């Protein structure tokens, strides 16, 4: 990137700048005439010619050659114009002035829009170049970068540069044009006016920039301080655990406050200085205006100047500070922008960027023979080398385990093979070619890599699988972008030096994994999920997610599925373990509120926890005998809760159990005291509502207070019927009522099939119900839809919706998804107990072996060295040197005990999982 901002702008916007200059030059004469015209209006039609009756006539549109008198000695009239009397002349001149004003305005509009467009292009180019560079940072370096800082620079810091880019060349041109025109005009009116103005302008040009120099320095300081603060905030948030664990939140506060203070005082000085400069500038310009009145007035009085010329001069002078101070501002902006620019880009100006060709070159291929390391050495940050003089081969089709002491050297070697670190000596070759020279389009598509990292991008499970196949746009998409047409977008991207890849195109490379189209891909995804041990996890996610059943696969079978399940239950004696939803019966496993609702709320006002305060329900309650019964129930619940809570002030436990905050408990206690004070047990209206709200959440099998009487159940059923009648006519319906014959999109798949709730505390019974539901889905051939629903599960930011183990399996699956020629497993799957790791590794190895003609090579540094025995070949490293290489039976016997020591199982005292 060019270090000089003006040059950078010029290099990328030359044609636009030239065009803008042309437009500005063309606009100048019009500006001049708009200054000239008021004078003519006053001197012409308004004053008239006193020597003639009625003021005489004037010429309209007479064109004379400027300065002709001085050059050739006499006025040169180019066009005679029209002879008009005073009033028509006034009208004509005013109309002309109006046209000129409109024209000037239009020029401004055009120029401003054009400037905006140009600066956006440059900005877009800059941002893209920065992003492009980040993507080409050496991986190890990119990890060191503070992500918040980089994002901040690209997003915010370059933004203010846009103002300057538009002005960079056109600004001074336009302004100096205006200033020169104004100045010329003044000179033409009176030589003294011109000279006077010149002197003042010169003074301005000398003094003001001097005063402003410090402003630029301050701006720079402010920028650095703000940026390090952004970095620090990012750092604190990343380590938020530590902040809480070590009670360093106040230290963090102090740190941030200190930085905020720095910014304040920098800005304070900045403001003081800025407004001082403004004050001096204004003073200079305004005091000059007095001179105009004084000197101009004198000339008018002595008759050397006509009043029209003075008025026009003053008008021109009033317009002059704009361009002049604009020019001074421009120079300051230029310096500030240069500083800002250098500051923004310097982090991106590295010499060790990967060559752009490594990523741009589209040279997919296969790894035929495999890897070879030659005298390979890798060290990290100048420390002792962790690998030295390693020469080994890894052939496609063979499976190799690495066992290393210290383990870091094995990790580093595999990172080297995956290009995550660069060798410090020696080289890594793939099919005889140096790895460093191979494009990522080759290695990124045929090398799969999974390590202990658990980061995943956000998106659906399906996206996580498919993303690794998105290397190049494969098929054009018919979809038009929201803003701007596709062609306009592409042209604009080209103008800003961006690549013209269409993000909306279909990027998925189906052919590479042997799938013909999208639907076909799910077979491959399923196979990969099975191999990575993720299939069950995805199905569990699916069965417990609501299904937006677009294909209608499950919807159309819902009645059949429910009937089958009932039959299943009847046959296996599970009937008593499930309480089905029955619109004519009270559902014991649900809260009172859920029983009234008997459906899924579509409008939050009908959420069970809000139901007590819902006006429709309140109306129904007021007319129902349920009200008194619910108040009674609420009172019992309140009494039991306060009894359990006792006088203990340690309420954390209680809160987790009942979901009531200490404040609520206090309120309830006070309410009970109020009620008990009344001799007749009268309860205030507000307290009644409070008690109903408490009662609404009551579930007999959970709360076990023995309060769900027959009359109460009947009363609730009455309410249910009343509510349904009331809501029948409401559109859109606020509640989707449970219906035996329809699929409820707001229930999960399992809930839909079960259409009821588990009503047993028999653990084995619960498991049997779950498996019966699965069985029915499989019988009806709906299991595929469950898997598909699981693929639609949103994993959330960083994949936080999945467990650590699932995320590690997902990363393994992503490596397998591309059908790699070489699969690298670098301490992958560490979240699992050793036995599970072994099973997963066996799964992967079996999967590879089953590809008889096209077997990938697998190289693995297992978390538990004992698993090395699963591989065909084992390589031992000690202190960074290769010491043994051969069949596991031969090599493992020679490894010392320390090397084969089992790592600690996850979930031990030291690392209790969240």
């Amino acid at each position, binding site marked *: 990137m060019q270090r000089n901002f003006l040059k950078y702008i010029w290099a990328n916007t030359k044609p636009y700048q030239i065009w803008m200059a042309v437009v500005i030059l063309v606009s100048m004469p019009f500006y001049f005439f708009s200054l000239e015209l008021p004078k003519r209006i006053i001197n012409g039609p308004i004053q008239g010619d006193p020597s003639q009756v009625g003021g005489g006539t004037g010429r309209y549109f007479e064109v004379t050659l400027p300065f002709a008198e001085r050059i050739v000695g006499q006025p040169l009239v180019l066009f005679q114009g029209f002879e008009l009397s005073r009033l028509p002349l006034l009208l004509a001149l005013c109309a002309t002035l109006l046209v000129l004003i409109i024209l000037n305005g239009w020029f401004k509009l055009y120029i401003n829009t054009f400037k905006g467009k140009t600066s956006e292009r440059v900005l877009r180019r800059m941002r893209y170049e920065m992003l492009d560079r980040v993507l080409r940072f050496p991986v190890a370096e990119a990890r060191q970068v503070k992500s918040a800082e980089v994002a901040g620079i690209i997003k915010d810091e370059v933004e203010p540069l846009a103002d300057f880019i538009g002005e960079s060349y056109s600004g001074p041109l336009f302004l100096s044009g205006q200033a020169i025109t104004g100045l010329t005009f003044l000179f033409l009116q009176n030589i003294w006016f011109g000279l006077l103005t010149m002197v003042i302008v010169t003074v301005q040009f000398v003094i003001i920039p001097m005063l402003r120099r410090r402003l630029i320095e301050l701006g720079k300081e402010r920028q650095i301080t703000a940026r390090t603060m952004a970095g620090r905030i990012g750092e604190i948030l990343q380590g938020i655990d530590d902040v809480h664990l070590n009670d360093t939140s106040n230290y963090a506060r102090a740190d941030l406050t200190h930085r905020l203070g720095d910014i304040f005082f920098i800005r304070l000085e900045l403001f003081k200085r800025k407004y001082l400069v403004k004050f001096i500038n204004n003073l200079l310009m305004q005091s000059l205006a007095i001179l105009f009145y004084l000197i101009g007035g004198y000339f008018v009085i002595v008759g050397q100047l006509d009043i029209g010329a003075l008025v026009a001069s003053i008008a021109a002078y009033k317009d002059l500070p704009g361009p002049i101070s604009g020019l001074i501002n421009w120079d300051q902006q230029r310096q500030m922008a240069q500083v800002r620019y250098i500051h923004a880009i310097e982090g991106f100006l590295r010499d060790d960027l990967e060559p752009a060709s490594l990523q741009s070159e589209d040279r997919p291929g296969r790894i035929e023979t495999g890897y070879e390391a030659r005298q390979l050495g890798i060290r990290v940050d100048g420390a002792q080398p962790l690998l030295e003089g390693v020469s080994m081969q890894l052939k496609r089709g063979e499976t190799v385990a690495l066992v290393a002491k210290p383990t870091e050297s094995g990790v580093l070697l595999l990172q080297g093979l995956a290009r995550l670190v660069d060798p410090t000596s020696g080289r890594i070759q793939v099919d005889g070619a140096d790895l460093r020279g191979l494009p990522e389009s080759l290695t990124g598509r045929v090398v799969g890599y999974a390590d202990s990292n658990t980061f995943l991008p956000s998106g659906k499970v399906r996206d996580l699988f498919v993303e690794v196949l998105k290397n190049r746009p494969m098929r054009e998409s018919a979809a038009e972008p929201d803003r701007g047409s596709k062609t306009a977008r592409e042209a604009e991207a080209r103008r800003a030096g961006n690549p013209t890849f269409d993000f909306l195109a279909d990027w998925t490379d189906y052919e590479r994994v042997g799938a013909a189209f999208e639907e076909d891909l799910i077979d491959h995804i399923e196979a990969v999920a099975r191999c990575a041990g993720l299939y069950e996890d995805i199905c569990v996610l699916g069965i417990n997610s609501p299904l937006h059943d677009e294909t209608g696969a499950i919807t159309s079978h819902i009645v059949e599925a429910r009937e089958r399940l009932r039959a299943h239950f009847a046959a296996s004696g599970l009937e008593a373990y499930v309480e089905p939803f029955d619109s004519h019966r009270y559902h014991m496993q649900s809260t009172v509120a859920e029983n009234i609702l008997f459906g899924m709320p579509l409008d939050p006002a009908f959420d069970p926890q809000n139901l007590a305060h819902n006006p429709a329900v309140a109306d129904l309650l007021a007319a129902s005998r349920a009200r008194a019964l619910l108040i009674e129930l609420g009172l019992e619940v309140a009494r039991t809760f306060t009894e*359990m809570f006792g006088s203990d002030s340690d309420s954390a*436990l*209680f809160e987790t*159990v009942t979901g009531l905050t200490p404040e609520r408990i206090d309120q309830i206690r006070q309410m009970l005291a109020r009620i008990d004070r009344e001799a007749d047990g009268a309860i205030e209206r507000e307290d009644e509502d409070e008690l109903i709200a408490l009662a609404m959440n009551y579930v007999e099998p959970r709360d*076990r207070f*023995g309060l769900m009487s027959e009359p109460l159940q009947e009363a609730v059923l009455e309410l249910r019927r009343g509510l349904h009648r009331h809501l029948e006519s409401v559109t859109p319906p606020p509640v989707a009522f449970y219906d035996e014959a329809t699929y409820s999109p707001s229930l999960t798949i399992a809930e839909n099939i079960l259409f009821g709730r588990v009503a047993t*505390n028999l653990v*084995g019974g619960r498991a049997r119900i779950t498996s019966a539901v699965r069985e029915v889905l499989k019988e009806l051939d709906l299991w595929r839809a469950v898997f598909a629903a699981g693929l639609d599960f949103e994993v959330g930011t960083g994949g936080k919706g999945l467990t650590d183990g699932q995320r590690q399996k997902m990363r393994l699956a992503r490596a397998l998804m591309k059908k790699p020629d070489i699969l690298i497993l670098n301490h992958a799957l560490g979240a699992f107990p050793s036995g599970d790791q072994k099973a997963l590794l066996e799964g992967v190895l079996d999967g590879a072996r089953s590809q008889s003609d096209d077997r990938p090579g697998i190289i693995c540094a297992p978390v538990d060295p004992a698993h090395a025995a699963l591989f065909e070949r084992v390589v031992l490293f000690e202190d960074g040197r290769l010491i043994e290489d051969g069949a596991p039976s031969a090599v493992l016997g020679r490894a010392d005990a320390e090397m084969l020591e089992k790592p600690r*199982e996850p979930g031990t*005292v030291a690392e209790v999982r969240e």
Partner: protein
Amino acid sequence: MTSLNDEVALLRTVPFFSSIDSGRLKLLAYASEKLAFEDGDLIFRKGEAENDTFFILDGAADVVDETGGEAITIAHLPRYSLFGEISAFCNVPRTATMRASGHLMVLRIPQEHFIDLIRSSPAMALQIIRVLALRLVDTTSDLVAARAEGHSVHNDASGSA
């Protein structure tokens, strides 16, 4: 369906919980989940990482060791026994596998509530210490016995050589 009051009354008869005031006992029962198992059902497995404590309300449970590949019952816990407390106290994975012996009804007490209970009731803490100490006595005597047996085996072997 038993009511909360019945459960509290039942817990009250158990020496273990007799010292806890009734409100707190009610809270404990309320916070805990009542679970049933059928003969042979696994309650938890050795190595699993969850830390709830179980109290046998009805029936019995076996402590099982599976290290050798086959399951060997190493202890039998009768009604009103507490198990799973090691994981609750020490945050370690399960140290043994538990299996229902006949129909079993347990109260599953979440770890935080269990710890909270002990913190708030020294009498209860004392009860638990007593139980743990008795177990230690048993284990020690078992160990002594096993050692003695091992010695005698060793002696026999050397004698015959």
